[in-house]
Structures are given as structure tokens and as C-alpha cells.
């Protein structure tokens, strides 16, 4: 059985898709057959970040409606043979997703894949609900600012009450905190919440901190998940996160100000 991971946040623009792409690529690079699904029907982005937008023929909604088979819709990643992408439909809306349809696809994928990463849309409506409903693990992506933290808190509430595991009284979804766009300089200046502040509000296991980094935008624009940019701080942060998720013991980085090598990557105003 595959492990289903939802990448969620509530708030938009915090880095869900970037994270989904990086995590999925990271897991695949570690030798696990991984699928990543874009749940953002109508606002399809994952294909761009993964650099496969020119190869989209069928999509998620086609598979749900039985217009295409799963194998027809899955796109194999050009960087890694073990990674497949299921793109969202751009011409439909979130109502095209049904719980039965999503459940069926996840069940079918589970037979073949080790990890399934669900890239949740922003918000708490249908798309986000279905993205997290079947999850085993949740990566809650949060920016170090109050509205993002509150939205994440709301999402955590939904994960613990509106998911399949909650409804069927199974072991709850494992929740992990990913703090993205973190800038130690700005934390020091008091312009940003610190890791401790966020953890105090959310009381959640910290899986990793992703620094604010130019490499993320570059990676997005070029359609290569940032984790492949091994020289970049954000890429390394995601690599650490994948390793920690798989049980490796990696000390946290990018929390404090660094001088020298990585210093230049840290966000300036």
C-alpha cells in the first residue's frame, strides 16, 4: 500500500506546489516510485513547476470521468523514471472532483506506487477537502507570518476532523510542519515570526525549514523542481526534509543566520 501525503496550507502562495514538486522528486530520487497529483483543478500549475506542461494530454478529471485510463493520464518525469505526474484539468472546476472518483484513483495508484503526493489547492473548499481526505500524512506548509499560521491551524483542525481517518476513527493523519520562505535576517529584525513562535502557536512536529531563496523562483520558471538544484539552500532544505521524512536523522539547518557560503542566498529586503 502506498503512503498518501497531502501538501496543504489553507492559505495560497505559501509554496504548496513548489513543495509538492520537490518532495515528490526527492522521494523518487531516493528510489521510491512516486506519483504527484495536482488537485488544483482550474488553476493547474504543478505541470509548469515539473516542466511537463507540453506533454499533458489527459488529466485528473478525464480519469475520474472515465474518459482516459490512469496510465494514459500519468506523465513520466523527464528527470526521474520513478516519478509520475497526474495533472489537473485547466478547463474544469473543483466540482468535477468527486470523492468516489478520487478514492478510486488513489486506490488504483496505491497498488503500483510507494508514495502519492497530493498537491492541495488553497482554501478549505472541495478541492482542498478531497486532496486531504484520503491522506495518511500531511505536510502543512506555513510561511512565518500570522495569517498563514492561522490558516494552517484551521487546516490542521480539518485534518483531524474531516478526513477519512478521522471519520472512520482510524489512527489520525500524521501532521508535519514545513516552514517555508524563512528569512533569519528578518526574524532577527522582528519582521517575521521565528520557528519557535510558529511552533508555539501550532505545536506541530517541525519537518524542516525552507529558506527564502531566489533559487525557488528560478527553478519554477525553468520547470525543474528546486530539489534538483543541489547547490541551492532551498534545494538542500528539501533534500533534508525528504530524508527526515524517511527516517534519517538530519539536524535542522537554515534556522539561524549563516555567514559565508549560504549567507548570500538569504532573503534581503
Amino acid at each position, binding site marked *: 500500500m502506498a503512503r498518501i501525503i497531502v501538501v496543504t496550507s489553507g492559505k495560497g502562495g505559501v509554496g504548496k506546489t513548489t513543495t509538492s514538486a520537490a518532495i515528490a522528486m526527492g522521494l523518487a530520487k531516493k528510489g521510491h516510485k512516486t506519483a504527484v497529483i495536482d488537485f488544483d483543478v482550474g488553476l493547474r500549475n504543478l505541470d509548469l513547476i515539473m516542466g511537463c506542461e507540453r506533454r499533458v494530454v489527459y488529466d485528473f478529471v478525464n480519469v475520474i470521468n472515465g474518459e482516459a485510463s490512469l496510465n494514459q493520464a500519468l506523465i513520466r518525469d523527464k528527470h526521474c523514471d520513478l516519478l509520475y505526474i497526474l495533472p489537473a484539468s485547466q478547463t474544469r472546476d473543483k466540482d468535477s472532483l468527486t470523492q468516489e472518483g478520487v478514492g478510486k484513483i488513489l486506490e488504483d495508484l496505491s497498488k503500483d506506487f510507494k508514495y502519492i503526493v497530493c498537491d492541495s489547492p488553497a482554501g478549505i473548499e472541495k478541492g482542498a477537502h478531497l486532496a486531504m481526505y484520503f491522506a495518511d500524512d500531511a505536510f502543512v506548509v506555513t510561511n512565518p507570518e500570522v495569517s498563514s499560521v*492561522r*490558516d494552517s*491551524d*484551521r487546516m*490542521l*483542525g*480539518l485534518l*483531524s*476532523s474531516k478526513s477519512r481517518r478521522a471519520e472512520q476513527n482510524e489512527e489520525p493523519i500524521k501532521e508535519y510542519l514545513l516552514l517555508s520562505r524563512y528569512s533569519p535576517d528578518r526574524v532577527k529584525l522582528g519582521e517575521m515570526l521565528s520557528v519557535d513562535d510558529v511552533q*508555539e*502557536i*501550532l*505545536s506541530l512536529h517541525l519537518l524542516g525549514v525552507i529558506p527564502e531563496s531566489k533559487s525557488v523562483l528560478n527553478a519554477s520558471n525553468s520547470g525543474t523542481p528546486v530539489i534538483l538544484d543541489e547547490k541551492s539552500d532551498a534545494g538542500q532544505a528539501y533534500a533534508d526534509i525528504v530524508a527526515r521524512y524517511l527516517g534519517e536523522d538530519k539536524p535542522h539547518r537554515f534556522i539561524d543566520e549563516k555567514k559565508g557560503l549560504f549567507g548570500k542566498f538569504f532573503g534581503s529586503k
Partner: protein
Amino acid sequence: MSTDFQKTPHAVPALEFKSSSFSVPVLVLSGNDLTAIDHQLQKKIQLAPEFFKNSPIVFDVQDLNKQDLDIDIAELTGILYKAGLLPIGIRGGNELQNNKALELLIPIYSQHHSVSTESLPKEKNKPETQKVPSAEPKTESSTTLITHPVRSGQRIYSTGDLIILAQVSAGAEILAEGNVHVYNTLRGRVLAGVLGNEEARIFCSDLQAELISIAGNYKVSEDLNESIRNKPVQVYLQEHTLIIKDIV
């Protein structure tokens, strides 16, 4: 607008005011057709005549006013008396209806917020329920224990005491008919004694609440004194004023 009823006088002292809460049936009206109300009421009462005989009743006209339907309060109370009920209060009435009710010596009750509503209407700075003669035994209250964090947007209601061992996030809402204990950081809205129990108290080990309320008497975060913030405190009611004190 106190409606306290007194027992027969004792020797010394002659009287004493006490607060207590009762469970009273509420007749929620959704139409203003008095003939239909009369008819349907009689039908309902025939199902359990003994239960309704001389039962006190509060009638709720909030839904009618929402639909802009008016109702003759005098006629309505006539129907209630005829059915063997003793109207002891009006709820959700407009000014005209309330005045009419007062003329008929029927007390006015403040709006009651339903537990099932998604967003709570603005709290009234008054006890929600006041002393009324009891008609039926008080419903069994029970303590609710919560061990997981109460997240933003979540809402917990306890018919008795509420004990929470994890944090209560900003944007969460915890309500209890009895006391509330939070053995962690309290950031959300907390309402104790929601049915008017003025003896209810709130305890928490780190007060950062957005709103605290006991029996409808509330304070918002902005009104909280800095000296009791981020501290273990208890909150109780003294003469309709919320007292917040350190627990040492």
C-alpha cells in the same frame, strides 16, 4: 429585568437572592397564523397532556421577525393559556412585541444562541437564562475531556464541564454549560456557563484568549489587563463583573 421568584419567607433573614438555572421548554414559532398555531399546539399537547399541564413556557418569535411576520402577543398568550401552558417569557421579540409582553407581565429574555450555528451572534452582556420555576428535572450534565489541540475554526460544546489538556488556538471556540478548564495555552474564545450559570468559572494555565465569557458577561482580548495575560488564571463572576485572578 430580574425575574427571581422567592420562596415563602423564612424567619431571619426574610429573604435571599440566589441564582439558579432551569430547563424550560421553548416554543419556537415559525408562522404567524394563530389558528394554525392553536390547532397544532392542541395536537402536540394531546400526545402528552400530563407533561404539558401547567408547564411554564418561553415562546420564541425570532424566526417570525426574521421573516417580517408580526404576531399578536396577547392573542398568542391567550392560546397558550387555553392550552394549559403558563407563558413565562418571550424571546427574540422586537420592541413592540416586548412592550406588549411586559404589559401582560411576561418577562423578556435575551436572544439565545443556538449551539449548532456556525458563527455565534454577538454576545449579550446579560445572563442568557434567568430564574424560572422548574417544570422538568434538569438534564443530566456531563464532563467533556479533550486531549488534542482545538484548532482555529473548531468548536467544542460541553453540556457540563469542559476540560482541555491541549492548546486552544486563536479562532477556536469552546463552550460549556459548566466550568471550563484549559491546562495549556488558551488563545481562542471561551464561554462558560452558556445557559446562564453564573457560578461557572474558567481556568487556564496561559491566558491569551480572544474572548472570555461567563453566563453572557464577556470581555474581549483588548479589555484584558496586561498583568493577567500569559499567566495561569481563573475567571469568575462577581456581581455581573468578570474577575480575572492569578492562580497561585
